[in-house]
């Protein structure tokens, strides 16, 4: 490969960086002031491309294109303001996890709305009037529109800088980023400020998306890809730093361009295809930055957020009614194979539910009492599932061995990732765990020789007598009950107290001699290990495993289960897993718009039942008894 080709890819990377910068800058601004990580920011970007497409194809020529881009940015900005007023304003005092889930629900709803309005096909807009030609550079031809994109990012960066440094809005944004409560006590209407910032941030995302219309087709998968990239950019650059976002956007885009430019390279006789590393590369950059500079290149430690949600009630051991209920449930489950003789599907559903129970309970263990909001619990599910499946595939291992190996593989993964993750907290921890899960996913997806790539591993069937649904159901039941009881026991052991103390007040816990990081690290490892059991059981239950079953959506599903059941109770994840899996299996299979449905459920949950199903029951029980 020549140096020229290399530099050409670098230029290409710069033009990609500008779109990334717009989204990331908006995300960063919004986070700084409102402390909300808007996962729907990628969706606003996607909407930008679609709306700009409609403008450019409806109104011909320069006014339709360039006017359309400006109009799109304004429309998306107003849409952002609407989201802020209608939804986010109600959840500023809610726990962080709820805020993340609420904005994720928006992703689902916006995606289905886009599908409904524009249809499933990719839509490529016209080329930009006035910038249709290409300019010869470095022996190749670079579209002049790309040069325009390279130039516009620094202009927007300067404009944002000026706004932040010299205008009253900018001063308010900077003050509120540090201490929004004090800004309110000085007579500033926070609600107005938040709406303005949200509108500005959304406008930037819309602009970024609209500018892509002449470059890439509008596509329904853009939202998650863009938000993934934007997260990496914001975290690498430092939350709240606009210049950091620009710097990081360039770094990420250039690293990707470098991977593409390198192509297939022979290293010591082995040919390595670097184009396949684009997915892993950006998350590796992020992981490295977070480990070396936990607050990003130009970020500062987040100020302690004032006026957070009400402190949680302590969890308590189960009382008699609950124990009796649990016993009855277990009896019904044991009898289920007899009851389900006419409905064999019930057992299959039962296996799914029990696997979900293990998954959700292990996530709850660290996310609830541990306070570590992992957005990448699917990693350990995946490690367990692939650990078991690959043993069967390559070594023809028996099921027993594979099922023992599953939690061990997951344990090692959790020990490694957890060591880094527990050094961070809050949003940064969520992002780092997500990054690790993406690395696992990308490895599985791109290491075809070992994992079968996107085809996955097939033919992982359990041997007799486990090949019948009844016996496999009972096996799953035993393991699920054991997992739930073990995690419960741990929470009421001194280890569990130490873990909760570390969550509630790290400083005081350290002061009485608890090594909080170590305790949380162990908790993370235990949760990962137990989750690996779920992964192993899943592989054998389905007979196959593929990358798509261990993606981001599984991590999110887990969080929804935990919150649906109620994060502040121990029965919550169990109830949530049952409710969610059953719902997914019945209602969501019926409709093409299952995303919107799921999103609607999450929003309802966050707004109306923040304590979850089990929490609501407990509240009613208490009211009834008092």
């Amino acid at each position, binding site marked *: 490969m020549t140096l020229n080709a290399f530099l050409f890819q670098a230029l290409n990377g710069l033009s990609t960086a500008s779109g990334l910068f717009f989204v990331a800058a908006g995300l960063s601004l919004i986070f700084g002031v409102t402390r909300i990580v808007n996962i729907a920011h990628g969706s606003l970007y996607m909407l930008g491309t679609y709306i700009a497409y409609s403008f450019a194809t409806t109104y011909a020529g320069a006014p339709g294109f360039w006017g359309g881009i400006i109009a799109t940015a304004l429309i998306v900005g107003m849409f952002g303001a609407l989201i802020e007023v209608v939804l986010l304003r109600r959840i500023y005092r809610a726990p962080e996890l709820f805020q993340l889930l609420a904005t994720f629900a928006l992703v689902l709803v916006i995606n289905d709305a886009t599908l409904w309005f524009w249809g499933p096909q990719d839509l490529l807009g016209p080329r930009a009037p006035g910038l249709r030609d290409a300019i010869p550079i470095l022996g190749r031809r670079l579209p002049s529109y790309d040069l325009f994109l390279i130039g516009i990012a620094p202009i927007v960066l300067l404009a944002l800088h000026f706004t932040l440094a010299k205008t009253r809005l900018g001063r308010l944004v900077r*003050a509120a980023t540090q201490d929004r409560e*004090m*800004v309110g006590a000085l007579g500033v209407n926070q609600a107005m400020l938040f709406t303005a910032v949200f509108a500005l941030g959304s406008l930037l995302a819309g602009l970024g998306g609209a500018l892509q219309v002449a470059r890439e087709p509008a596509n329904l998968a853009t939202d998650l890809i863009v938000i993934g990239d934007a997260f990496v950019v914001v975290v690498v650059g430092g939350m709240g730093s606009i210049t950091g976002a620009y710097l990081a956007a360039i770094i990420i885009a250039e690293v990707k361009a470098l991977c593409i430019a390198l192509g297939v390279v022979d290293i010591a006789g082995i040919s390595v295809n670097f184009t396949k590393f684009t997915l892993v590369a950006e998350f590796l950059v992020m992981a490295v930055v977070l480990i070396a500079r936990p607050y990003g290149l130009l970020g500062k430690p987040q100020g302690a957020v004032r006026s957070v949600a009400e402190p949680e009630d302590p969890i308590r051991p189960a009382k008699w009614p609950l124990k009796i209920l649990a016993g009855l449930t277990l009896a019904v489950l044991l009898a289920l194979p007899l009851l389900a003789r006419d409905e064999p599907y019930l057992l299959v559903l039962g296996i799914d539910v029990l696997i979900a129970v293990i998954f959700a309970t292990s996530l709850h263990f660290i996310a609830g009492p541990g306070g570590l909001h992992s957005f990448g619990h699917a990693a350990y599910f995946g490690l367990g599932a692939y650990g078991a499946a690959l043993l069967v595939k390559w070594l023809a291992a028996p099921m027993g061995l594979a099922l023992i190996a599953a939690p061990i593989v997951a344990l090692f993964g959790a020990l490694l990732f957890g060591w880094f993750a527990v050094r961070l907290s809050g949003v940064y921890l969520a992002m780092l765990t997500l990054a690790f899960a993406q690395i696992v996913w990308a490895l599985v997806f791109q290491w075809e020789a070992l994992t079968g790539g996107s085809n996955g591993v097939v033919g992982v069937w359990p041997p007799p007598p486990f090949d019948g649904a009844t016996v496999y159901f009972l096996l799953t039941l035993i393991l699920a009950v054991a997992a739930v009881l073990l995690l419960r026991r741990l929470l009421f052991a001194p280890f569990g107290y130490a873990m909760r103390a570390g969550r509630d007040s790290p400083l005081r816990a350290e002061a009485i001699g608890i090594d909080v990081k170590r305790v949380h690290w162990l908790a993370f490892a235990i949760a990962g290990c137990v989750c690996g059991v779920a992964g192993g059981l899943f592989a054998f239950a389905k007979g196959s495993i593929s990358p798509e079953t261990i993606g981001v959506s599984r991590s999110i599903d887990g969080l929804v289960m935990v919150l649906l059941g109620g994060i502040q109770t121990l029965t919550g994840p169990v109830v949530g897993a049952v409710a969610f899996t059953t719902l997914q299996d019945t209602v969501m299979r019926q409709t093409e718009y299952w995303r919107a449905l799921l999103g609607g459920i999450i929003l309802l949950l966050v707004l109306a039942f923040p304590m979850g199903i089990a929490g609501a029951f407990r509240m009613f029980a208490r009211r009834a008894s008092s």
Partner: protein
Amino acid sequence: MIGRTEIKPMLAVEGLKAWYGAAQILYDVRFDVRRGEVVALMGRNGAGKSTTMKALMGLVGRREGRVTFNGRDISRLRPYEIARLGLGFTPEDRRIFVDLTVEENLDIGRQPPRRFADAAPAPEWSPERLYKLFPNLGEMPRRLGGRMSGGEQQMLTVARTLMGNPLLVLFDEPSEGVAPVIVEQMANTIIELKKEGLSILLSEQNVHFARLVSDRVYMLEKGQIRWSGTMAELDANSDVQRAYLTV
């Protein structure tokens, strides 16, 4: 004149209760501040002085009771609405915006001029006027808040609150943790503001400081008012001082 203000105090608090989470901090706090008066809210650490002030500003999650300010019920308003009615707040931990310069900090506090209920204009503040009151600040308008000494930050907190042209200022422990020379300056400032016609509610555990500036005193313990009287009465009553202040 005096008769009228006696009937309608500037700030009247009745049955104020407040909670942090499940823990109740204030039980039935009642007191009032008349126009032009400096009132000290005294008590030991943890008695509820700061919580009272935060509850008045609407900064406590759960609060109950009736608070009337300048003739209006403010007990259900949000912090910015309360501030816009002319209630200024200087918090104990100062809460200066560290990434903003002195000028910018002042600008955040800026509000339009306002009038008292009887239409008399309230004192109006500009950065220039505040630099005269606090010459130290005038020497460093471009200094970042985070690069100032504790005493300078204390002055900036007061100046920032005054930029909102308040009718009444809540001073939370202005003498806490600053050098004696600054304490003296804070006392002079409070006397100056009183001359300007402002009312002041001061939270304080230091009798010497309170004596310099206060007209009346309320003694707070365990979230309740236990004693009230004039400053002279408190001075003469060592029993009360011993019961509610001495550690």
